[in-house]
């Protein structure tokens, strides 16, 4: 019994000592934790250093329902600091913020135009290493500086970073751009041939209001931004990469226009090597429906549908071709054709991959489109007087 008491006493003492020694390392109280929801990277004015903007939420301002507490201040705080490297700059922020920045809830990384043109890999290295970075963090490229983007006060949410996230996730509705996550971007950077793309975002400023807009996508060569795709070119890219979800397709038909909604799209890429020539066969299967027509004519006939399909094919093809032309012009394999060849022809790959820059601009792409039109919506005829024939 006495022995047990001694053992218990020892355990007690060690527990007390444990209390003193531990319990502080990783502990952070929620109410003192600066939660970062967005990070922007820019060149510092001095051009030598990098400038980092961190968007920190103010939870006390978030309390209460949205919009009701308009009298209060902003729900976020943009903290800017410069440093030689990203990490340096982020740690410099402790001079101004009330604690170590918590970036595990960072939703978006906005890369300034200058940085993108210079090469992003060295700036993203920190984020890849940091255990806090989530692979789902989105990457967007600013057409100007990232500070400008993160400073734009959104209308529907209270935090800019959140609105950018929503915005880039909403791109799949029109398929004029797509969201690119950190994970995707890492994979792009690791590929020998595929060129990275990322949505391009601009801030449209009026006198009083300013809104954010995603317009097309930025194209990279290696890790440097070399150009951009406009909206229809972006969709051309998405047709080939298979990222089309839905979207509107306006096609001319009999001097009027018909608007088709993309319901479903699939793609198949088959590379072919014949002798020295490399062909890429892109096959796209699309399904659409008529959502709007300007003509007064009844288009719900078999012939019209056949004709419409052809026009639709042409419209899709022209979008793809415009993207392809841009890509070949800039010599950037944004479609991942190189990887497709790699997957099929592993023997030839070594030689092809080393010459890819020479091969890609002149690569022949066959585009085959099989589209169909599914329905005409709630009505079949337009609402015009019908003649009984």
């Amino acid at each position, binding site marked *: 019994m006495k022995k047990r008491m001694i053992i218990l006493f020892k355990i007690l003492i060690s527990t007390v000592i444990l209390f003193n020694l531990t319990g502080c390392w990783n502990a952070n109280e929620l109410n003192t934790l600066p939660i970062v929801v967005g990070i922007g990277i820019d060149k510092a004015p001095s051009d030598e250093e990098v400038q980092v903007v961190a968007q920190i939420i103010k*939870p*006390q301002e978030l309390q209460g329902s949205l919009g009701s507490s308009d009298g209060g201040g902003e729900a976020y705080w943009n903290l800017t600091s410069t440093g030689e490297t990203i990490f340096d700059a982020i740690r410099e922020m402790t001079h101004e913020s009330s604690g170590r920045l918590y970036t595990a809830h960072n939703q978006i990384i906005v890369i300034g135009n200058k940085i993108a043109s210079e090469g992003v890999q060295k700036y993203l290295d920190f984020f890849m290493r940091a255990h806090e970075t989530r692979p789902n963090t989105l990457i967007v490229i600013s057409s100007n500086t990232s500070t400008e983007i993160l400073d734009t006060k959104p209308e529907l949410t209270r935090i800019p970073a959140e609105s950018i996230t929503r915005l880039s996730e909403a791109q799949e509705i029109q398929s004029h751009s797509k969201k690119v996550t950190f994970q995707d971007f890492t994979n792009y950077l690791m590929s020998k041939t595929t060129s990275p793309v990322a949505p391009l975002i601009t801030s449209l400023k009026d006198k009083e209001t300013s809104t954010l807009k995603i317009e097309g996508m930025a194209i990279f060569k290696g890790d440097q931004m070399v150009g951009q795709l406009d909206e229809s070119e972006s969709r051309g890219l998405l047709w080939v990469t298979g990222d089309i979800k839905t979207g509107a397709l306006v096609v001319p038909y009999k001097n009027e226009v018909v608007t088709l909604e993309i319901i479903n799209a699939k793609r198949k890429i088959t590379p072919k090597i014949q002798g020295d020539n490399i062909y890429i066969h892109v096959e796209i299967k699309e399904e659409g429906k008529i959502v709007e027509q300007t003509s007064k004519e009844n288009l719900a006939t078999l012939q019209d549908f056949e004709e419409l399909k052809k026009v639709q094919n042409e419209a899709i093809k022209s979008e793809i071709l415009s993207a392809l032309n841009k890509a070949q012009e800039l010599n950037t394999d944004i479609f991942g054709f190189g990887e497709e060849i790699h997957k099929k022809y592993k023997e030839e790959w070594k030689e092809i991959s080393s010459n890819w820059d020479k091969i890609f601009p002149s690569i022949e792409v066959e585009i085959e489109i099989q589209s169909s039109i599914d329905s005409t919506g709630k009505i079949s005829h337009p609402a015009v007087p019908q003649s009984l024939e």
Partner: protein
Amino acid sequence: MFNYLKKIIHYKKAITKHTNNLDDEKDQGVSLTSHLDENLNMLKNILGNSNDIIIKLLNIGNNHDYKGALVYIDGLVDKTMLYESIMRPLQNEMSCSKDCSNLTVLDRINERLLSSTNIDNVSKIKLLIDNILTGNTVLLLDGSNQALAIPLQKWEKRSIEQPVTESVVRGPHQGFTETISTNITLLRRIIKNPDLRMESYTIGDQTNTNVCIVYMKDIVNPKLITEINTRLDRIKTDAILESGYIEAFIEDAPYSIFATVGNCEKPDKVASKILEGRAAIFVDGSPFVLTVPLLFIENFQSTEDYYSRPYFSSMTRLLRFVSYFITILSPGIYVALTTYHQELIPTQLLFTMAAGQYGIPFPSAIETLIMLIIFDILREAGIRLPKPVGSAVSIVGALVLGESAVSAGLISPFMVIIVALTAISSFVISSQTDSAAILRYFFLLLAGLFGAFGLIMGFLFILVYLASLRSFGTPYLLPISPLSMSGMKDTFIRAPIWAMLKRPKTIGKYNLNRQTESYMKPTENNRNINDE
């Protein structure tokens, strides 16, 4: 050398034990004399002058030939019966010729006069005392060195009521009472089988409490009964006031926070346990009957599970497991998440939580600790209080501590939700409320110190501990670990009764088959029943 010393010590111990036994025998050995006065003096010496001890001198026989005395304890004896069946026959109807010796008179009284059953002949003074104390009426006769012990017990007792701890909607509503004979009768009423066996004990030097082991002879593991016997024999204590005393003495793991001896208040539950091969220990004075061995899983089973349809029973069974985990882990998880792993909280939720936490002066570990302690105080206050006051306590607790603390900015609203959830869940598994309360603090401590790592380590520790526990030789976590597939039918789900063909593997291994035939399909006749 040490062995030698040990041997000597053992030898000495054995000798003292032996002499102790001799003393016992000597005590018991004092016999009654054939003089009534001497006997009564002896009794008075032992029993003292307590005013509830009644010594009634009377002359026996219609000629008042014999002097005798009735000794009993006031309040333990049925007075009408005493008068009707003892005093009157003794004083009026006894006719005895003078040639009868005093010895045979007693026998004749026993055989002819007294209508009561179970009358014992007692000749030792200690037995006599025991009989008086248990409520028997003792008849002493002058000139006889024997006495008659007549059972005429009757005392105030609680009637059979619905138990407070385990009330059911469907199923028998009666519960055990404080009287062991009533309790055993209740059980007998359910199991009408000659194999239902009982072994009686008297434990407690001062209280002389009746303890009874009940089991089914052809189902139970005989070694289990031997083990219980040895453990009960080992008990050397002065008082057994409740079955909890017995539990404390025969437990496998006396330091454990988990009970390894079960208790329940309902005859049908005890019957089902006995029929699975367990043994029950009835203790006089307690409506709580002990059952051994106890499995951890039994805390999650309720009698009503078996009386309602299997789907709903299975659902409630799963709910109980979920509640158990919620009640022991949720404060810990909350603290781990808010102080160490904010990364794991979904972003929008984190914003809301951060907003709720804004301005709270305590770290969340301390906040949780305070709230848990307050909850435990409220609960303890509520249990002991009379019902009308109890509701007042809960109003004060809910309003003052919940509402005001949040609006005063002392406690975050999330904390109140967590504590309320913990509290409600803890009542779902009523038999594990005690261990859960301790585990909750244990996990809170670990989470406050080491976050998720602490929680995982604590969980593993508890798991290993449970896996190493045994209750009367049966692994405590039984159907789960070691895994028993047939036991799984009655663990996380409750299979239909007809599908549970076997008794629990380890407990009922001597007679595994519960039923041979499973559910029979309706006969062809079934369709035609309503035809005519």
